[in-house]
């Protein structure tokens, strides 16, 4: 099956700022893929490149099997896209916005749009300029969903919204996923991502530093806390791929993947008089550790795991 998204060695720079550096990955159909990374990591540039709104300096992107460079318009027609700051006409009403946008899509758009307007309990007669931030976002989401797109792309859809609206957005995403359609979600709400994502893509400084299924990433990563007898003692190397290491006095904390459990059981050579325990970190812990470690020693990719199979 063709992946819904395919990026091959995509690079893009604005002046001296390298927004994307040789980013390659695929997203198979029917997944909820979360795009994570600090502000300025290149997430929005990546999304805009996919939609053909930016031209990459090199590399290719395909969406639903179409080349973004040549088929941008067709891609934007087939995909549901909600930008971080949705551009709506302030002087139109909620109903007029749907009617106006319907003109760009096949028939049926307005019907579904009106269903969402009722679902989100919006007042169709209200002018866009009088809407609150949350209500405005609901209009934008209704527009993005009204042509029942195979792929929904959301660029920080819930930033600055109240918990109730965020929850409604999550439910809509789940609904899309339940129908076997795909979602690409860029977000800083890590706990939300943890609920809905099948796979995560982590960008940092324009580089892809991790792509994995969420289950796999979480189940293979452990946090090891060891207390050594004194400050001077060097801890033995942790049996696994270390993502991050921090020292607080004579306490050491590691975040590591693929740990050899049997070596851990034999205390992997910890000196006499030390103690340790192992914890399961949350996605937020993992993300923070990756970003910090990378910031300390850029160029060393801590966790580029193999791309998702299937």
């Amino acid at each position, binding site marked *: 099956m063709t992946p819904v998204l395919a990026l091959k060695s995509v690079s893009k720079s604005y002046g001296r700022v390298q927004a994307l550096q040789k980013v390659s990955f695929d997203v198979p159909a029917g997944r*909820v893929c979360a795009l994570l990374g600090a502000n300025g990591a290149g997430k929005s540039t990546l999304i805009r490149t996919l939609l053909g709104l930016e031209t990459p300096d090199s590399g290719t992107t395909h969406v639903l099997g179409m080349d973004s460079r040549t088929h941008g318009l067709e891609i934007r027609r087939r995909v549901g896209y909600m930008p971080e700051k949705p551009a709506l006409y302030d002087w139109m009403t909620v109903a007029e916005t749907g009617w106006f946008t319907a003109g760009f899509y096949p028939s049926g758009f307005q019907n579904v749009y009106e269903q969402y307007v009722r679902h989100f309990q919006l007042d169709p007669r209200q002018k866009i300029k009088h809407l609150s931030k949350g209500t405005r976002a609901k209009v934008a989401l209704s527009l993005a969903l009204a042509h029942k797109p195979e792929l929904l792309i959301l660029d920080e859809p819930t930033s600055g919204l109240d918990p109730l609206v965020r*929850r409604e957005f*999550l*439910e809509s995403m*789940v*609904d899309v*996923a*339940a129908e076997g359609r795909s979602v690409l979600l860029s977000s800083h709400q890590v*706990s939300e991502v*943890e*609920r*809905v*994502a*099948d796979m995560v893509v982590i960008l940092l400084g324009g580089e892809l530093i991790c792509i994995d299924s969420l*289950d796999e990433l*979480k*189940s293979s990563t452990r946090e090891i806390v060891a207390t050594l007898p004194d400050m001077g003692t060097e801890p033995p190397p942790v049996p696994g791929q270390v993502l991050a290491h921090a020292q607080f006095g004579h306490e050491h904390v590691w975040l590591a993947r693929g740990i050899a459990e049997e070596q851990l059981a034999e205390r992997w050579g910890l000196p006499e008089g030390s*103690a340790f*325990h192992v*914890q*399961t*970190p*949350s*996605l*937020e812990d993992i993300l923070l550790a990756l970003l910090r470690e990378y910031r300390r020693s850029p160029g060393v990719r801590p966790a580029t795991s193999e791309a998702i199979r299937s």
Partner: protein
Amino acid sequence: MHLHLDPSNGLPIYEQIARHVKFAVANQLLQIGEHVPSVRDMATRLAVNPNTVARAYRDLQAAGILTPIRGTGLAVTPDAPGRCQAERLGLIRTRLRSVLTEAWQNGIAVDELRSLFDDELSQLATAGLATAAR
């Protein structure tokens, strides 16, 4: 059935969902022959990925807790209450073990732990009586 999920508590979400269902069966909130919500309903209600719910349901089927009823969904099996009650004790034991390990590592004496345990238990019992009387 009300479920509270904590995505970042270290336990995978599908495991948390499966546990909730098992506890509900053990507590007879879900009885033999009753249906669990469909994957889609449950996923929307919890705002989690539908695949996660599907995985929890698959695990529950494999464990003989749920069984598909043609055309209507998944229902609680006759064997489920016994299995879930047995497992409930096992899960509590695991939780207790991790608390005890933590206490042990922090050098709390056995006697102290025992009196702490009894103390908490009697407090719970008093609180339980108070609620029952109300």
